[in-house]
């Protein structure tokens, strides 16, 4: 290139990162010789691919591999690169930039590409040596130095960068722990289902993850030694990486009087309010949006490059973002809006055996978002359909199978299964092929799914292929197939309640996303029918670990009161075994007076119902009842309701045992427990049965020689007398046997299934064998019951009267009429 005689315009670029580099590339493509170019870079090196720092950290790449523009490129393009020189001021009137060293440089056009800086969380100890951020090569070098001596690293932030840092440090031999403020990892880029799979994959690498953890301090004497969390835990650390987000670098622009908000404000052509000054990359705010990913930066660079080249451009219209994580072996992709919507607006495909989760979110026949985990091959295709706003209605049924499947026929499961070759694998978990299943069905005369499972193991592990196995059964048996009476839990899944319960325990599934992924749910987050059931199953299986999800409960259990037809509630305090005292009655009367409770009624369960309480009054009503020693009667719960008693030996001339005392003891032992459906007990002191125990879920009839335990009565829509389970001699035995029976019911029945239905389903003999004959088994049931009771021993009313879940009871806002001025003046 020769020197032009006319003076070329001077283009000064502040920043030597990826955005700046790409702007120049675009400019050179279209107008290679237009400017004299001076680039200021704060880092002492050439332009490199910052998003590839993670492979450098993990050792999969070297710095040289990630250089975008080497020295030769700068020389070839006659760029005057001032590396290690920071621009500190812009004089817009004189059109000069000033550097830290005091040097000045004039410009005709100026591009600000100052990027962003990592957010440092303002906690004590943040300045200690050993605390680093993750932004540039210097940070990587600092991490590598620390990793060289091994030890423990704590990474604050479970987003993209934090996880990449953790994986890199773990690959370098450090013990890494990720501390994340939110309940799920990468919550902005992933839905909870994909986040569950990601967490599992990260933990498999030996990286610990602590979610919902707020850092309160970094501790150490002269250098970092640990991280203290708000809950009091302290994590030992030789290295702390802060990766909680980025903030645009806009001080330079702000000080120069340009408009800034969260970033430097630019128009669609990356211009600022000064005609000579442009801004690009992570430092800008465009249409209210700041970006921290590379694709949007490159899209901006294309526009700005063209504009600097003097070409017409359409302008930059903002970016739809997509995300990938650069951790080897973790395949995830997300784009667009994948927040939870309606079932009808999404297509979900899960393959538990391969750890695959795919979800495409639709609106009005177009893709608006996608989350893929485990198989991201079609991410680009979905992203393209999304960006182009392609109408996908015609491919709706096959869309989720990916681009290569398009044009294929929609699946009819029966026909598809019939068409499969004999050696096609049906059950991936157990390696069972089609012919093995059909041959076993024919050879052994199998008639039900359970038979096929027992004989071939097909669909016995994760259950995902249940519908295929069933289709094979139907196909093989033809008209002889009775359907087996199987009823899937809901439209979200092919498995029955019992199967889901079984898998939750066998596969140790401890959260809703885990259940939905591993059991191949067909929706992303269930429905109002399966969520309450799953919430109960998880609570029952993992009483110490699982955290109750209030939003998966019906209003009565959420508000700990019974909703009435007018939206008010009824309140029923416990009266243990039907006993009360003058003090309790006085307190109830006072509450009824004070809160103007319209109806006070005696219930069929020997207690008092206060009807017509306003929701906002509930906590105060409870506080007052608590003060008199009363607690929630759980009249709203799928759990223990009442234990009805007669007066027994205390008063009755026919009484054989202390039935009232036993009733009180039973109620105290069993209360608070959640069960599949409501549970009512009765204890009668003699066979005259004044407590009507033989129509209760569990009834005790006292006799001279001890206690007859009855089960499975009903006196509702369906009336049924109890069956005798067995006889025990002592009160202690009666308590243990009843609790063990209740635990068996808790562990086995389907959600909303009353005791009598469940007993008829499994058979009285089975229940009797488990409780009356298998003494070790019964003791184990009793022990499990006691463990689960430990978790529910607090009175829910007292907790709420003390302020828990206040949002449930208080309006968000209340607007009062402003009094007319005339009145106010009186």
């Amino acid at each position, binding site marked *: 290139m020769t020197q032009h005689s006319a003076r070329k315009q001077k283009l000064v670029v502040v920043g030597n990162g990826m955005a700046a580099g790409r702007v120049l590339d675009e400019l050179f493509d279209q107008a290679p010789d237009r400017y004299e170019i001076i680039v200021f870079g704060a880092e002492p090196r050439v332009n490199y691919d910052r998003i590839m720092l993670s492979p450098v950290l993990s050792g999969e790449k070297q710095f040289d591999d990630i250089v975008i523009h080497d020295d030769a490129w700068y020389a070839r393009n006659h760029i005057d690169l001032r590396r290690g020189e920071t621009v500190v001021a812009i004089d817009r009137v004189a059109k000069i930039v000033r550097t830290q060293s005091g040097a000045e440089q004039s410009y005709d056009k100026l591009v600000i590409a100052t990027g962003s800086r990592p957010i440092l969380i303002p906690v004590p100890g943040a300045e200690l040596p050993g605390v680093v951020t993750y932004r540039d090569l210097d940070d990587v070098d600092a991490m590598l130095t620390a990793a060289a001596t091994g030890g423990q690293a704590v990474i604050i932030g479970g987003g993209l960068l934090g996880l990449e840092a953790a994986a890199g440090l773990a690959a370098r031999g450090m013990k890494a722990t990720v501390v994340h403020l939110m309940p799920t990892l990468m919550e902005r880029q992933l839905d909870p289902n994909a986040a569950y799979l990601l967490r599992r994959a990260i933990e498999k690498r030996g990286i610990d993850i602590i979610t919902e953890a707020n850092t309160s301090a970094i501790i150490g004497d002269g250098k970092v030694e640990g991280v203290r969390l708000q809950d009091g835990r302290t994590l030992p650390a030789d290295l702390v990486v802060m990766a909680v987000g980025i903030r645009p670098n806009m001080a330079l622009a702000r000080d120069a009087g340009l408009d800034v908000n969260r970033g430097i404000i630019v128009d669609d052509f990356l211009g600022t309010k000064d005609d000579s000054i442009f801004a690009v990359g992570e430092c800008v705010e465009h249409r209210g949006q700041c970006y921290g990913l590379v694709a949007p930066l490159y899209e901006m660079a294309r526009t700005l490059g063209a504009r600097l080249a003097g070409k017409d451009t359409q302008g930059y219209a903002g970016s739809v973002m997509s995300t990938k994580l650069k951790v080897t072996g973790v395949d995830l992709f997300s784009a667009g809006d994948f927040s939870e919507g*309606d079932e009808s607006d999404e297509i979900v495909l899960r393959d538990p055996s391969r750890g695959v989760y795919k979800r495409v979110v639709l609106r009005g026949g177009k893709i608006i978002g996608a989350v893929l985990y485990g198989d991201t091959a079609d991410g680009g295709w979905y992203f393209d359909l999304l960006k182009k706003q392609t109408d996908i209605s015609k491919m709706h049924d096959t869309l989720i199978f990916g681009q290569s499947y398009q044009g294929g026929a929609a699946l009819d499961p029966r026909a598809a299964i019939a068409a499969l070759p004999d050696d096609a694998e049906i059950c991936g978990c157990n390696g069972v092929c089609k012919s093995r299943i059909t041959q076993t069905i024919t050879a052994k005369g199998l008639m039900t799914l359970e038979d096929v499972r027992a004989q071939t193991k097909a669909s016995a592990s994760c259950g995902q292929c249940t519908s295929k196995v069933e289709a094979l059964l139907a196909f093989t048996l033809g008209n002889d197939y009775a359907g087996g009476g199987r009823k899937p839990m809901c439209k979200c899944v092919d498995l029955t309640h019992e199967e889901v319960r079984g898998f939750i325990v066998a596969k140790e599934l401890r959260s809703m996303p885990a259940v939905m992924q591993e059991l191949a749910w067909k929706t992303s987050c269930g429905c109002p029918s399966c969520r309450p059931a799953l919430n109960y199953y998880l609570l029952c299986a993992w009483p110490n670990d699982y955290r109750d999800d209030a939003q998966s409960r019906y209003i009565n259990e959420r508000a700990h009161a019974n909703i009435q037809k007018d939206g008010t509630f009824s309140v029923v305090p416990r009266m243990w075994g039907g006993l009360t005292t003058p003090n309790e009655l006085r307190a109830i009367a006072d509450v009824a007076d004070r809160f103007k409770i319209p109806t006070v009624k005696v219930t069929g369960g020997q207690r008092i119902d206060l009807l017509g309480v306003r929701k906002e009054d509930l906590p105060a009503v409870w506080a007052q009842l608590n003060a008199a020693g009363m607690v929630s009667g759980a009249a709203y719960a799928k759990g223990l309701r009442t234990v009805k008693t007669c007066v027994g030996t205390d008063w009755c001339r026919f009484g054989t045992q202390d039935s009232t005392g036993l009733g009180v003891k039973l109620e105290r032992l069993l209360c608070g427990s959640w069960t599949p459906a409501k549970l009512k007990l009765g204890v009668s002191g003699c066979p005259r049965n004044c407590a009507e125990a033989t129509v209760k879920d569990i009834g005790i009839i006292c006799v001279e020689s001890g206690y007859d335990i009855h089960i499975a009565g009903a006196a509702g829509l369906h009336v049924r007398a109890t069956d005798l389970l067995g006889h025990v001699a002592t009160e202690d035995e009666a308590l243990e046997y009843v609790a063990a029976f209740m635990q068996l019911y808790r562990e086995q029945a389907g959600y909303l299934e009353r005791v009598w239905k469940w007993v008829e389903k499994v058979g009285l003999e089975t229940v009797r064998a488990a409780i009356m004959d298998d003494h070790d088994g019964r003791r184990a049931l009793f022990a499990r019951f006691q463990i689960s009771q430990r978790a529910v021993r607090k009175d829910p009313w007292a907790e709420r009267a003390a302020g828990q879940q206040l949002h449930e009871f208080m309006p968000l806002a209340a607007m009062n009429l402003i009094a007319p001025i005339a009145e106010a003046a009186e």
Partner: protein
Amino acid sequence: MNETMEQTKVFWFDVGPLHAIPPRGARTVKTPRREIAIFRTGGDEIFALENRCPHKGGPLSDGIVHGRKVACPLHNWIINLEDGEATGADKGCARSFPVKLENGRIYLNMSVAAAP
């Protein structure tokens, strides 16, 4: 400005922060004329309906929120949060109100919510 224009003036009233409503939950805003239920979906979208089921007047804010729908706590009618229409075979509509989310706060259009 004529009277019609005066009445259609938009008055966005700040009723509280998004985080005051649990995801898949609802809370009420009491106005002199009616009670309004503000719903927050699992995906942090916000909707506002009159807190009365078109069926028997059940408080929709007490229902289970799923997707962009709520199940009435009294008789399990499923109401669409976007327009208040009952879904499936049920017919009826709960009145919906303009509501918006800005910088983490919820704004209700009181000129509509307070009007007859």
